[in-house]
């Protein structure tokens, strides 16, 4: 069972947003729900999405692999996605990213050995006036105006919560 009964109901509701026969439009919203429930999109999970939406599996794979928000490999409990684009770099993002790597003892793209944190860089998050910025799924809250100190505190809070 990949989805709870209430999720299945939610997916049926989403399909109603589109005209008759256009249920493929539900693919992105449903992939977001699938990832929120399972943290990443395995082939089995994508096959289940295909079955629910009456699509060919390839239609799901080709979409999931196009969009950078979808994780096609296992990730840590918290995926930390930090912006690396120009305006954030004007205000210290590069220095911050180095600090984040040192603090967690991993490089960009890696997961800590306790499985808690995955570190990723992403492109512009539309928070250029409050950079440096990062977000953490599945809620995708923004953490803005970051400093090394604020990052350390965030990590302590997440560790305590885990």
């Amino acid at each position, binding site marked *: 069972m990949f989805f709870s009964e209430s999720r299945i109901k939610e997916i049926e509701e989403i399909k109603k*947003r589109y*005209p008759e026969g*256009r249920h*493929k*439009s*539900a*693919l*992105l*919203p449903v*992939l*977001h729900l699938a990832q929120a429930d399972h943290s990443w999109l395995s082939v089995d999970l994508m096959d289940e999405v295909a079955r629910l939406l009456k699509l060919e599996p390839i*239609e799901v794979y*080709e*979409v999931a692999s*196009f*969009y*950078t*928000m*979808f994780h096609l490999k296992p990730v840590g409990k918290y995926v930390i996605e930090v912006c*690396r*684009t*120009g*305006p954030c*770099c*004007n*205000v210290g993002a*590069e*220095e911050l*990213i*180095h600090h984040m*790597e040192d603090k967690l003892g991993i*490089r*960009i793209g890696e997961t800590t050995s306790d499985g808690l944190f995955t570190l990723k*860089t*992403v*492109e*512009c*998050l*539309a*928070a*250029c*006036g*409050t*950079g440096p910025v990062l*977000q953490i799924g599945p*809620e*995708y*809250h*923004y953490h803005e105006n970051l400093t090394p100190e604020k990052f350390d505190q965030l990590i302590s809070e997440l560790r305590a919560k885990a």
Partner: protein
Amino acid sequence: MGKKILLEHVDVPGIQTLEVYRKMGGYQAVEKALKSMNPDEVVEEVKKSGLRGRGGAGFPTGMKWSFLDKKSDKPRYLVCNADESEPGTFKDRYLMQRIPHMLIEGMICSSFALGARTSYIYVRGEMMYVIRILEKAIAEAYAAGLLGKNILGSDYSLDLYVQPGGGAYICGEETALLESLEGKRGNPRNKPPFPAVWGLYGCPTVVNNVETIADVPWIINHGGDAYAAIGIGKSTGTKLISACGNIKKPGVYEIELGVPVEEFIYSDEYCGGITEGRKLKAVVAGGSSVPILPADLILTTANNEKRLMTYESLSDGGFVSGTMLGSGGFIVFDDRQCIVRNLWNFSRFYHHESCGQCSPCREGTGWMEKVLHRIEHGHGKMSDIDLLVDVAKKIEGKTICPLGEAAAWPVASAIRHFRAEFEEHVRNPDSCLKKHLHREAALAH
């Protein structure tokens, strides 16, 4: 203080809620349009207003609406472009987060004008919390009879939905957005046919930016002529500018089009000047895709006229000495910033975001990134500089969508205005202003 059309009530406590929004005069435009105007009259007011698309291209909105194929018996769609991913641009996020009902009111009025019965707001997936804010506001609007069947007792009905993206800058391009909304990869379509004829599900469709749509209620309430009276010449009305970089007060500002650039950068009403008393080096005035200008050319045109925040003044001088208003993403660089490093960063962005459909863009953006990487990291050759110009030229105009131009213009303009800095990087790599930051593994992809 300039005229405020969008942000007048942004600081009113509770303005996110329907109750407060209505108390401040919200949804009057829906009443007026549905009860006392016909759709063509709404289109006419928008035409008169001179409103131009706020997503970047600045195309006249009323004209775009009049291209919609109304003879077709297919359903018509209005799709709001809330993909906002152009580096430097963060105005739509601000507007949706702070005054969600303004966008919803604009969607109702605009859908009515276009005869759409179902409309979508396509929001980039990263803004999940904005999606929740919009969904809550939409639920309030349904409960109040402002959405759904027979809105406010009229014979007009509309359903409005929010659609999440999945992380892809290209989906801001309107036809890629429509593909994405159909549940596909975001590959832009060949045009023509344009969306006005063949859009969502092959039906006549209008795609408009968040800010464009949010301007419509004011135009309905006050009339197109009143809107056209604000601003200068063909730059009518107000514009949201998201200002960032090395300024004292980064943020979203609503300006009357026509404010001098110098005033925008230095006055306390707006950016408040450069941080730590540093000197202004350069500005990217309309999102990362538009040409970068050095301090002297952003403040005054080549003819020594004061540069103004208007479509026309910013583009004065064409690509030789001008730039564009674009999306209003205003990025300020102080004298500590390295133009080469920033350009390498932007080139990496465009390479990362190219959908890969057209080879000039797919290959060219990667090539530019590589060459800039080697110049920035001390392995460049003098001939690399002209090589970059050449590659940029060979992308421009040769792709299905304008992401090619968006990637090429920053390269061409940075070299045009800052060639000496590129040459200095080749001759003396240690001179790079941000040399101490290099740590290749960290930022490689």
